[in-house]
């Protein structure tokens, strides 16, 4: 079997901020009523906890993001998805839920540098300055759906895999040297 290849094979662009496609990144879409009691234990079983509304919680290389009142996004190393799915399936056996591997359905970008927020401010109708600590924002990047959050001196952005090239184009155009907003 081949090694998994992310949508753009790790393309990057150096503008007034650095844009890189990263991955493959493991992702699980978990749908379940967040008030279900076994959920906390299920998340603990994969080393995570329940994120607050509209927040993302990071723990030792894994993250849990709040996507909607009945949807979480679990982020973890690509190779660990299978085990995590099995663990969730076991702990949630008696709870109506849907846990599905979406690692390959997504593309993930990092936007890094002191001015990385400006790259996103050109594409997403988001008041980035007003984002709370640990806030995950589901929004759009120009014409496509996207979600992003602040992380480690920059931002991590997730979009659908098929439009990775479009999003790379957007981020690169936005990060073009000379087009800084301030």
């Amino acid at each position, binding site marked *: *079997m*081949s090694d*998994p*290849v*992310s*949508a753009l094979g790790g393309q990057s662009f150096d503008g007034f901020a650095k844009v890189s496609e990263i991955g*493959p990144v493991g992702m699980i*879409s978990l*749908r*379940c009523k967040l008030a279900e009691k076994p959920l906390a234990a299920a998340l603990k079983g994969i080393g995570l906890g329940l994120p607050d509304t509209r927040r993302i919680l990071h723990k030792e290389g894994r993250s849990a993001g709040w996507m909607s009142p*009945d949807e979480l996004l679990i982020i973890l190393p*690509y190779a660990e998805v299978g085990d995590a799915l099995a663990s969730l399936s076991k702990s949630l056996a008696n709870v*109506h*839920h*849907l846990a*599905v*591997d*979406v*690692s*390959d*359905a*997504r593309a993930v970008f990092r936007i890094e540098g002191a001015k990385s927020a*400006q790259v996103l*401010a*050109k*594409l*997403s*109708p*988001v*008041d980035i*300055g*007003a984002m709370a600590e640990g806030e995950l924002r589901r929004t759009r990047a*120009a*014409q*496509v759906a996207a979600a992003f959050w602040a992380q480690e001196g920059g931002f991590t952005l997730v979009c*659908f*895999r*098929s*439009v*990775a*090239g*479009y999003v790379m*184009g*957007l981020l690169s*155009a*936005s990060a*073009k*040297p*000379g*087009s800084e*907003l*301030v």
Partner: protein
Amino acid sequence: MSTRLATGGRLIDRGVRKSFTFNGRRLIGHEGDTLASALLANDQMLVGRSFKYHRPRGIVAAGPEEPNALMNLGRDDRLEPNQRATTTELFDGLEAASQNHWPSLEFDVGVVNNALARFLPAGFYYKTFIHPRAFWKHVFEPIIRQSAGLGKAPKSRDADHYEQAYAFCDVLIIGGGVAGLQAALTAGEAGKSVILLEQNAHWGGRAPVDGDMLEGETAEEWIKSALDALATMKNVTLRNRCTGAGVYDHGYVLANERVADHTPGDGRPKQRLWRIRAGHIVTATGAIERPLSFAGNDIPGVMLAASLRDYVVNFGVSLGDRTVVVTNNDDAYLTAFALIEAGLSVPAILDARAQAGEAVLARAKAMGIRVEQGRAIAKVKGGKRVTGVQICLQAGEGAPIEEIACDAVAMSGGWSPVVHLWSHCGGKLNWSDHLSAFLPDLARPPLGQDGSAMVTPVGAALGVYLADDIIAATKAALSGQALVEDYAAKAPAIPPVWVMPQGAPIQLRSKMWLDYQNDVKVSDVQLAAREGFESVEHAKRYTTLGMATDQGKLSNINGLAVLSKALNADIPQVGTTTFRPPYTPVTIGALAGEARGEIFQPLRRTPMHGWHEANGAYMEPVGLWRRPYCFPRGSETHEEAVIREVNNTRENLGLLDASTLGKIIVKGPDAGRFLDMLYTNMMSNLPVGKCRYGLMCNEQGFLSDDGVVARIAEDTWLCHTTSGGADRIHGWMEDWLQCEWWDWKVYTANVTEQYAQVAVVGPKARKLLEKLGGMDVSAEALPFMQWADGVLAGFPVRVFRISFSGELSYEIAIPASHGAAFWEMLHREGAEFGAMPYGTEGLHVMRAEKGFIMIGDETDGTVIPQDLGLSWAISKKKADFLGKRGQERKHLADPDRWQLVGLETLDGSVIPDGSYAVADGTNENGQKNTEGRVTSTYYSPTLKRGIAMGLIKHGPARMGQTVAFNKVDGSTVQAKIVDAVFYDKEGAKQNV
């Protein structure tokens, strides 16, 4: 003549020269000049020809209200038409050309229209070109367009790039004059997040030119201290060269920043459209001076008084040595004073009022300026430039008293507050008799989401004209205090002077221009009133007043005042036309933003997209996806490639990238019940491990989507949808689950992009998979319409035994991250079996040979499954499903509905796409009756003849009959009605 003065010019740097051209002539200006000031410095007073009469026109204003000095800027891929010289900052190498002249600016044949002016009155086009009707399109319009064009449309792709950006703030202040700066100071000190926009490169508005004193400082000093103070506030952002263009609901504002208009080619975005969401909007947009309507007020050399002063003070440019000032207010006297201080001559101030303000009168007297009160201009003398004015009584009919030689006229008819942005979102206006202007009515503001005022106007935009009042009133307004004083009433009165002289006869009124850009005169508006155009909106459209690119910034108030007089109504009764965004034109480039070229729209790519491109695929759009239509080899045409691909798939082995196929997981205790509602047939009784073809209809009963459903586990199904339907069907499912059946325990996930999918098709398909090894793909282990998880050549796969081609076929899903490698491996390993990729056209041809329907071909939103012979897929047992009741309606249950059949042309040709079956007789519109239409039509490489499917009236009952289909050339082609399955009707080939 206009010229550069020896001294003065607060905005220019005389040490830095900028070279530019006008109509090919090389000219020199300075750093800090606008194109307009640089043209005037070079005595270029004639800058264009008017729209209708081709009259010579000069620069009238110094700001965005300029109607005349519209230029073609740049060339080729940087050509921009209709750019205002007054707002264009000069840069080295700027190329400008005047518009609307032929053959040259100096000598223009169109000026003959001028002589014929009395034959071109208001409504001329409507009256003249209405008959005969056909002439408008073919004769009149082309000629009029030729002779009356403004700028040239660019023909090259724009070399520059544009972008948009989002911003948020508590308070957005539009206008960086004294009022705007004070608003920013007050809001900033209160800790609000503030964005302050200024359309010019410079801050402070016109206060420095007017020599205002502010809180004990000169205007220059005050502005500097304000900017210094604002610079220390982290919560305040200043952005110059940025015009607030439009105010919309909920504090949404569009602003256009001219980032690199003045530094073309430096790599920065040319313009940036800001999309700002503001908690509150402050309009500090100032006021625009109005022209006076006297005969010859459009001759080059006649300029707005304050603008003339701007050129002297800001740019050290004079319009002429001898300037006559004509006014109805005190403000214009400042122009006379500035001219005298610059060492120029003012032969007279003609004040239409009987009594001027005492202060200015005294100062004029002290400076030795002759002031004539109650006087007017009867007419301006001159052609391409002013040579003198005839003076008359304002109260009279224009009999000349005296003629004064001069080379410039500074006119002021008072000021109109810029209420556009206040009005965009519903702010109402009151007419002020005191200022002869419309002012924002603070009691009727545009409302925000909480019902409170969304916009606060300050400064001159509110009719607060006096410098100290502006500061006090702005502070109060931004602190949320009600205005205690009637500041507008405190300012000196500006009496109405709409026509000069007031009793001017038609000879004079037909030379008084209201709208310079659209060539509308006082006499035109009066004629419109006489002809019954009483509504200001009708009069506007009839005369074209205010309909040019300047949107009537100078002409609207004067025009409606003239109209109201002609109608014998008050101005408030006549009202204004509607103020609509944008305030000044915003280029399409900025509105498009980043969306051009590669990122014009999202292009969806499968994991194998790169392979397709590298292997010469001819791509076609499928939704936002690009899919290979075919893979031409060597010199093959697309048609030849499709034939080869179909034949190879039927004889050997074809590989199709089917990754775009929609894949939705549906899970939960109620999932079976849910799918039974969504699909017309039963899905709940599908055994785990098996596949079933299903149809989805909308509530009306029309066929919406189709695909194969696989039962993955006891509580889990995988629904395949069409490529274009995946997102729509997922949304459809969520809609029902969230809004209607919210208590059903069902979750869905759209995993379309999680998997690459490959159809391995053809008699040798199994051989290839057996060679790869890893799982049992035999007919016994994996029969038709079943699926299995397993491994092939080390790849984790899910294999579906389904066929859309009629051949032995495996559709193999694999995680997208392995898709490209798996696809390449299949080609490598399949080579010995003759593996070839095939595209969407081959797919279409093969499914048509099998009589399989395609959503979007056989369906168009008006077709029900029963029309397509799919009654077998509609459950009779189920109590309900979406579309069931819809299909029971009379029209949908009508036996006369057109129904699907196969069609074989008698001559073997291919029926044209979209062709209709022609029936006897004609309908009530005189069109031929029809009895059916083609839905899919192809050349079948397998049968070596044209085949088609179509919907025909009583089709299935008419097997063997012939029907006639129309062709593009008007003839018809005969086709025999046959079964829709042309190939392997028994289905033996796919079930081996």
